[in-house]
């Protein structure tokens, strides 16, 4: 693990140093490079959440600007997207009933964001909205809803709040640290209930409030062990799975009656 990280550091710093020495007078365009220690995360049954560390470097950075803190890094770990139904309960004849539903599409099932500074200091709300960067700026649109727009906002807010309460959405506004001049390290939170599937690590480079580069990496989250096999069986061979459950029931019922008869 440590070896891998060192190798990665060497790999990403080497070109940065090489290029820094050249220092051509030509207007340079900064680029971004990122790497993670793994591209697959195996969730075992005793998984209780983890931190993912993302390393990265800014190539062709202006040293003057770097020392002034003119560059900002934002790193996002976004889970697979799905449609989400948000429901609101109302009291009807004394009973609380789900009365209104608004469905949203392209909702990430998990979202963890880390940045060098609070997002509102990094750039303008407009830029965050257009890039869909940050929990409150996610580009999520309602499906098939033509009612009151203020309801949409309320439901959207409730969804983001609930997902944050579940630990699925997380924001760390000082989670990205520069370890040397142009090298940075970002830590992202993987919640206990992290969904299975292909996640994306996306890094953004901001220069004085303007987004100038972005980079992404896929990250596979797979559940392993007996539980994962059972989940697969339940969805892919549901008939056998159901018959299996009945068999266990019949067997345990029979077993108990036989085992206790002798006493």
């Amino acid at each position, binding site marked *: 693990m440590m070896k891998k990280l060192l190798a990665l550091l060497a790999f990403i710093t080497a070109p940065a140093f090489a290029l820094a020495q050249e220092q051509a007078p030509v207007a340079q365009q900064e680029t971004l490079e990122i790497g993670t220690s793994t591209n697959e995360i195996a969730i075992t049954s005793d998984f209780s959440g983890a931190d993912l560390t993302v390393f990265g470097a800014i190539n062709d950075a202006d040293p003057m600007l770097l020392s002034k803190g003119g560059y900002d890094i934002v790193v996002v770990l976004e889970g697979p997207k799905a*449609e989400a139904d948000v429901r609101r*309960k109302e009291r009807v004849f004394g009973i*609380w009933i789900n009365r209104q539903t608004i469905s949203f599409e392209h909702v990430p099932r998990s979202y963890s964001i880390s940045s060098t500074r609070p997002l509102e200091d990094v750039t303008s709300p407009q830029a965050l909205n257009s890039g869909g960067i940050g929990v409150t700026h996610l580009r999520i649109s309602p499906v098939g809803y033509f009612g009151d727009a203020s309801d949409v906002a309320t439901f959207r807010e409730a969804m983001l709040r609930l*997902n944050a309460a579940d630990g699925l959405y997380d924001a760390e506004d000082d989670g990205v640290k520069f370890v040397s001049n142009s090298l940075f390290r970002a830590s992202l939170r993987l919640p206990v209930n992290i969904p299975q599937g292909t996640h994306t690590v996306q890094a953004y480079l901001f220069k004085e409030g303007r987004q100038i580069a972005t980079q992404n990496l896929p990250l596979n989250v797979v559940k392993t062990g007996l539980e994962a096999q059972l989940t697969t069986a339940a969805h892919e061979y549901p008939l056998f799975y159901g018959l299996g*459950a*009945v068999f266990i*029931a019949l067997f*345990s*019922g029979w*077993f108990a009656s036989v085992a206790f008869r002798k006493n």
Partner: protein
Amino acid sequence: MSIYLPIAELSVNIFVILGMGAAVGFLSGMFGVGGGFLITPLLIFYHIPPVVAVATGASQVVASSVSGTLTHFRRGTLDMKLGTVLLTGGLVGATIGVWLFSLLRELGQLDLVISILYVVLLSSIGALMLVESIRAIRRSASQKPVSFRKPGQHNWIHRLPFKMRFKKSKLYLSVIPVFLLGGTIGVLTSSLGIGGGFIMVPAMIYLLRIPTNIVVGTSLFQIIFVSAYTTVVQAVTNYAVDIVLATILMLSSVIGAQYGVRVGQKLKGEQLRALLALLILAVGVRLAIGLVATPTDLFSVVFEGAPE
């Protein structure tokens, strides 16, 4: 020690589940009931998604009915013909029930309907049983002779068409009420995860006038097949049977039941029924509170393809 439930998608304390299974098994052995009406609400109180609680509850009913069914088979205390008509109704009812279940889940009203049905069912059955058992306790206290209803009298049910002869039950009875009773229980099995014995047995005795000695065996015959069928259909349509949860529950409940039976044999029938009635009422009241109490959050989020 916590264990991850793959279908419910949450970690639970294994000892809580074991304790729950053992307690429900003990009670079901003591009172001679399947225990589905206790296990499902308990699982819901323990934050297991209602979908999973109901589907898994059905499999637990299978386990707790095995030993009783075997006993009645051996002794021949069941009417196969009557049981088959009940079962046919039950399978149709269970199919309708699972379909309704999926529909309500889609509409986001499943939790509500499950709770309401449980409240109505548990409070009415519990109240009836309590009144009946208190009367019985008073009767035995004043040592009056117990007067049984005469089964010979015919009611409107016995005037329905499509009659069939049930030799074992010594009855010449229309198949319509039998089929409908089986069907109603089937709907309840698949939508509430209960066996329904505590409704079916009184209905068979008081409405259909079936001799008491074969009632339990015949109802168990219907229950075990309908709940097994429900388990398979729930697994296929809603992917909601949690085999890890089911296995822990079943193992602990079948063992608990064996001890429950012994304690039950030492208690008087009417006292036992009064206790069971109080227990049923308590579960009903707890669910009713859940319906009327202001929820901590009015909003809820469900992702497509996740259990609710």
